[in-house]
């Protein structure tokens, strides 16, 4: 008994003595020092997708704020963001520049499915984190084969799953028609949708028609879909085709429950061209607070965002969702760096990124960021929203995980 107590006491003393020593020990990989953390970013500042360049600028603006307030654990964030023009060949070159020349600790929020695909293998071979990539493809959450790559936003399959849950709750015997773009993006959504329906997929999906990005219109597809007699319509299309589909459905007098993928949820570029009255009642899913929605334009979280926009991102558009996106994802990275403390090795960065459980101010209430060693999908929760003629109105509960 005495021996046991003594051992316990000794162990406690030892533990207390060792703990601070272990904490005080700083560990660095390339790109991290006592003074700064070098982070690389690749965004399309030029080329066809240059509208997304705003995300990169917003991220830079957020890091400016963090640095002005003393940095993360006393270290400044040195964000080196370069342009790839959405050209995968250029992405490879820029990624190599950032990793081999600039010697960054990690790559952060590289944008687009093709550019990220181009460097997927390289980053994992180099064992450099490719963190919180800005694409909705499902393949970024594959820790077994690609332990150095992690997504961020809800992936296409989990979004599909959320629609299915809602359909099964509201219309369990509905007949579903699906229009989808015939590429990896469309198929990703479709696969998630069919998997979530499981056995019911065969009986519930009555029509499933694809179109090519090169097609001039989707009119004939819409006529066939209407002919199937479906009362639910899942619209997996990119903005131009989404507007066409909405318009054609109205022209045909077809009024199913209309689920529109979030890729095309923009009021300005999709719903307005399709016709406001034609778009009434369409359902989509969201996870970020819409900066144009009056219900979110109050409270500390809004004030903080607004103050940041005014001070650090004065050229940014207050109505632009991408600024909310950049702000939020940058906060996600800052949290990872905070958790990593003085152990700024690439391994520890991935370990901390896979141990997140938090909410962020500009995420919808109830939406969280949660990861685990076998779960590389940070945001999976979404809320459904319905178009009321001016904005998207959130309704119902939070879906997903």
């Amino acid at each position, binding site marked *: 008994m005495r021996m046991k107590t003594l051992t316990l006491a000794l162990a406690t003393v030892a533990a207390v003595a060792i703990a601070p020593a272990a904490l005080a020990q700083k560990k660095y990989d390339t790109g991290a020092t006592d003074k700064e953390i070098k982070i690389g970013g690749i965004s399309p500042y030029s*080329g066809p997708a240059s509208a997304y360049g705003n995300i990169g600028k917003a991220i830079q603006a957020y890091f400016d704020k963090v640095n002005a307030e003393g940095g993360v654990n006393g270290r400044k964030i040195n964000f080196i963001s370069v*342009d790839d023009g959405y050209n995968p060949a250029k992405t490879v070159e820029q990624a190599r*520049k950032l*990793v081999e*020349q600039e010697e960054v600790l990690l790559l952060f929020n590289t944008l687009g*499915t*093709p550019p990220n695909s*181009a460097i997927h293998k390289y980053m994992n071979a180099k064992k450099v984190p490719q963190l919180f990539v800005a694409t909705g493809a499902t393949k970024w959450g594959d820790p077994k084969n690609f332990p150095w790559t992690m997504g961020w936003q809800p992936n296409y399959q989990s979004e599909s799953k959320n629609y299915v849950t809602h359909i099964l709750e509201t219309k369990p015997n509905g007949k579903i028609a699906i229009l989808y773009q015939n590429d*990896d993006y469309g198929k990703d959504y479709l696969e998630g949708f069919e998997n979530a329906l499981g056995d019911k997929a065969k009986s519930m999906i009555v029509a499933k028609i694809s179109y090519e*990005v090169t097609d001039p219109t989707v009119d004939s597809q819409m006529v066939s879909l209407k002919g199937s007699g479906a009362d639910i319509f899942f619209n997996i299309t990119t903005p131009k085709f989404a507007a066409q589909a909405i318009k054609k459905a109205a022209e045909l007098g077809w009024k199913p429950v209309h689920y529109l993928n979030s890729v095309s949820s923009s009021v300005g570029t999709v719903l307005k061209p399709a016709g406001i009255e034609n778009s009434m009642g369409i359902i989509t899913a969201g996870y970020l607070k819409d900066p144009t929605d009056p219900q979110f334009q109050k409270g500390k979280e809004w004030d903080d965002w607004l103050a940041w926009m005014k001070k650090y991102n004065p050229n940014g558009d207050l109505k632009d969702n991408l600024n909310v996106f950049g702000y939020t994802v940058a906060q996600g990275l800052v949290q990872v760096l905070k958790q990593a403390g003085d152990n700024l090795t690439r391994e520890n960065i991935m370990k901390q990124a896979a141990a997140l459980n938090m909410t962020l101010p500009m995420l919808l209430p109830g939406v969280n960021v949660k990861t685990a060693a076998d779960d590389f999908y940070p945001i999976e929760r979404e809320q459904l929203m319905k178009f009321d003629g001016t904005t998207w109105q959130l309704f119902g509960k939070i879906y997903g995980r």
Partner: protein
Amino acid sequence: MKPLDKKWVWLWSALLLVALILLPFLVKNYRVFQINLVLVYAIAILGLNMLTGFNGQISLGHGAFYAFGAYSAAVLMDKLGVPYWATLPVAFGVCFVLGFLLGFPALRLAGHYLALATFALALAVPQLLKYKHIEHLTGGVQGIVLNKPTPPISFTFLDQPFSADRWLYFFSLAVAGIMFLMAWNILRGRVGRALIAVRDHPIAATAMGINLTMFKSLTFGVSAGITGVAGALGGIVVAFVSPDSFTVNLSIFLLVGVVVGGLASIPGAIFGGMFIQFVPNIADEISRSAPAAIYGVLLIGCMYLMPSGVMGGLNKLWVRLRTKTAG
């Protein structure tokens, strides 16, 4: 002006060779990768220059042949396990045939009309590559990820390991050497003169007994073939191909490379390659808000200072220096 001394030519050539061999060991891996891309673009520009500079046919669609070359190499390596070096002749063959076939309708189109027709090709190619019935081959939008070839031997030199990129440098250098030698052989003799004659005065050229149809189509074929080899090599160097890598911008950049390097100049292609590889990076470093605008300004500046391209500028400088020393 007296002819250059043979001895000096040999000496400078030897020095150049030593420099080319040492170069990849003096810089980081990433720079070697960039130099590889310069070589790749130089070959592509050489191909286009043959057509545009020497034969006077403007093509805004050479990015398409570059893409066909890259995809030929990628599909052969990925699906059939063909070794990387063996894909280059195939890429040449595929693009030669495609270019030759395209050369026929091109005979009826001259000047701007040809430029527009080839422009259409460049616009169409990224979408054709996404076509669903060939998706099992091309990988659709996702493209194909390739493995970098491993160097056949391993050693370290000047403290630098003989990495995949350095091996590819020597491989690309050899390919570029062969292509440039081939182009030089074609263009310096009878065939070259015929091409220029066709460019400058087609009717006179026909009167001299030059088969216009044959020459124009063949030039188109060889030009497309060389650009295809560049595409294949580019695919191997980057280790990834996808439709978005070969947008219409690529075709335009290649034409920019031809003009900046110097129309109808073989060594000019190397300067053209450097320009399209490095200038966008410089533009990006100067301004993140408007890299394209900076690029435009640099391009205009370049053309203003050297209206006949880098080679034209160098020639002028050379002539001026020689007359000064002679006089």
